[in-house]
């Protein structure tokens, strides 16, 4: 029962493709992780963990499969903690963790593949050019409800929040040390595009979305602007060099020093060859 749902939860086309391939070829005889086949670049790679990273890793996996036709990459979601737990128990070859590694996770080997940044966005015509962290906190707590209190024109503030469970919410709440119960929102959105359309359609709105999406849409002429956070301009560049504070690394983790297939896959995911996929998914590639 749970297994079938896991397939639904991850992206459907990917899982369908995997299903078809499995149906066509039959299950490979060795499904145990860390394949012991003589050829290092054949077999199955089980990857589980953060839902933020899953679509990205699934795409990278597809390209990796095209390069090495004997390899099957199976990506399942379940959150960063599942990535850590599955990797420790050996249920997965590689785990996906969408945050800074904790101290108690030092037993795992972590490999950053990209960074995820969150930008605060306003409508382009909003005269407010910058907000301090405290101002953002008070706005999201509903203590300031008018733009004139933060240097704008007299108009009620529309607070746009994201639905629970998404990575962007975690990054945002974590940085501002907010709890979701404290947030007094007027609109709750699902994905990034819906958030950008909401802010672009309301001159008095404030929201937050993935930096990659916001930067791309702004460059396409959508009437939004990105606010700097902690005095650092919001851009993929500042996220990449780690100076933008509202951002986090995306890791692949393994239990032991990776060898064979896992090693090849991690090296591939860190290489320049996948930078276009990373950008497509609105994450920020790392400089190598």
């Amino acid at each position, binding site marked *: 029962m749970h297994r079938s749902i896991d397939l639904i939860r991850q992206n459907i086309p990917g899982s369908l493709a995997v299903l078809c391939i499995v149906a066509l070829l039959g299950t490979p005889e060795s499904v145990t992780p860390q394949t012991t086949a003589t050829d290092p670049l054949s077999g199955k790679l089980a990857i589980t963990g953060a839902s933020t990273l899953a679509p990205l890793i699934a795409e990278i996996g597809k390209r990796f499969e095209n390069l090495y036709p004997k390899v099957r990459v199976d990506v399942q979601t379940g959150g960063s903690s599942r990535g850590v737990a599955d990797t420790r128990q050996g249920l997965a070859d590689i785990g996906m963790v969408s945050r800074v590694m904790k101290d108690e996770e030092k037993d795992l080997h972590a490999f950053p593949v990209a960074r995820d940044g969150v930008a605060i966005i306003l409508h382009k015509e909003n005269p407010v050019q910058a907000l301090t962290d405290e101002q953002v906190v008070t706005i999201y707590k509903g203590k300031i409800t008018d733009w004139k209190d933060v240097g704008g024109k007299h108009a009620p503030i529309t607070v746009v929040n994201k639905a629970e469970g998404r990575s962007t919410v975690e990054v945002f709440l974590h940085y501002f040390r907010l709890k979701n119960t404290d947030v007094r929102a007027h609109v709750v959105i*699902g994905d990034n595009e819906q958030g950008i359309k909401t802010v672009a*359609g309301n001159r008095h709105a404030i929201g937050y979305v993935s930096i990659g999406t916001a930067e791309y849409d702004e460059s396409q002429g959508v009437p939004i602007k990105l606010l700097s956070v902690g005095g650092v301009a919001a851009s993929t560049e500042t996220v990449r060099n780690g100076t933008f504070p509202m951002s986090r690394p995306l890791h692949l983790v393994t239990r032991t020093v990776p060898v064979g297939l896992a090693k090849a896959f991690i090296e591939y995911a860190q290489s320049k060859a996948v930078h276009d996929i990373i950008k497509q998914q609105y994450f920020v590639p790392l400089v190598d």
Partner: protein
Amino acid sequence: MTSLSSNTLSRWSTDELLCWVLRGTAAIVGTIVLLIVVFLILEALPALHHLGLLRFFTDPSWHPAEGLYNLTPMLWGTLFAMTGSVLIATPLGILSAIFCHYYAPLALARPYRRLIELLAGIPSVVYGFWGLVVLVPLIAEIQPPGPSLLAGILILTIMILPTIALMADASFANVPQQYLQGAAALGIPRWATIRNIVLPAAKSGLFTGVTLEIGRAIGETMAILMVSGNVVQTPSSLFDPIRTLTANIALEMAYALGDHRAALFVSGLVLMAVIIALAVSAEWITRGRMYG
């Protein structure tokens, strides 16, 4: 029965074959519905076991990440949006069908009917997108923030309007011609004929139309998710944002885990209960009065 089977040469008469095919399909349909309910209950069980059904109605708020699971505001959101849109769409739809059937010239009635059919065929996400970029900014001009119960009601109205309009149209077409000819012979004016003869005669069809539109209004997800703001609260005015039970599932299912996920299945169960309650009450209202 005897005469039928003796007339056929094959061992299986066509009637008997058809009967078994129909029994088979009916059994499949029934099983699917039951399986869905069983699946919902199974998936919701962990949450019901850990938290108990009561907490879904008595918790202070809906914040699954912090272990708070109150569904009541979303239940109200669903019911308010449904009631509002049904109250607007039903008279509009019936009046539009009356116009189409009894007042419009044939040259106008035909394209008008096609237009309504077209309205029924537009995917809900298109309505939602239109609502998000046109309707919501308009409402924001009147009373910010814009995404609101009102926007949800208006979008739902447009979406369920074709359902009731087409059902009413079909049931007017089924009113026996003799009734109308009789009324004309008696010299009864057109509106009096419609009010006193056509509407009572078409009652059962109209009622089916209302039941169908209620079902669609409750089940609608994508459009209402895009325009109604999705803030979990019991609305105190038309301009307050709301979240419906369906939007709740669509918004959070992709990223939910553990109890949170099971709680979303409880949302589904509550939705199912609302629809069963409506179906049962519709049955009760019409029993022996409408179709007899």
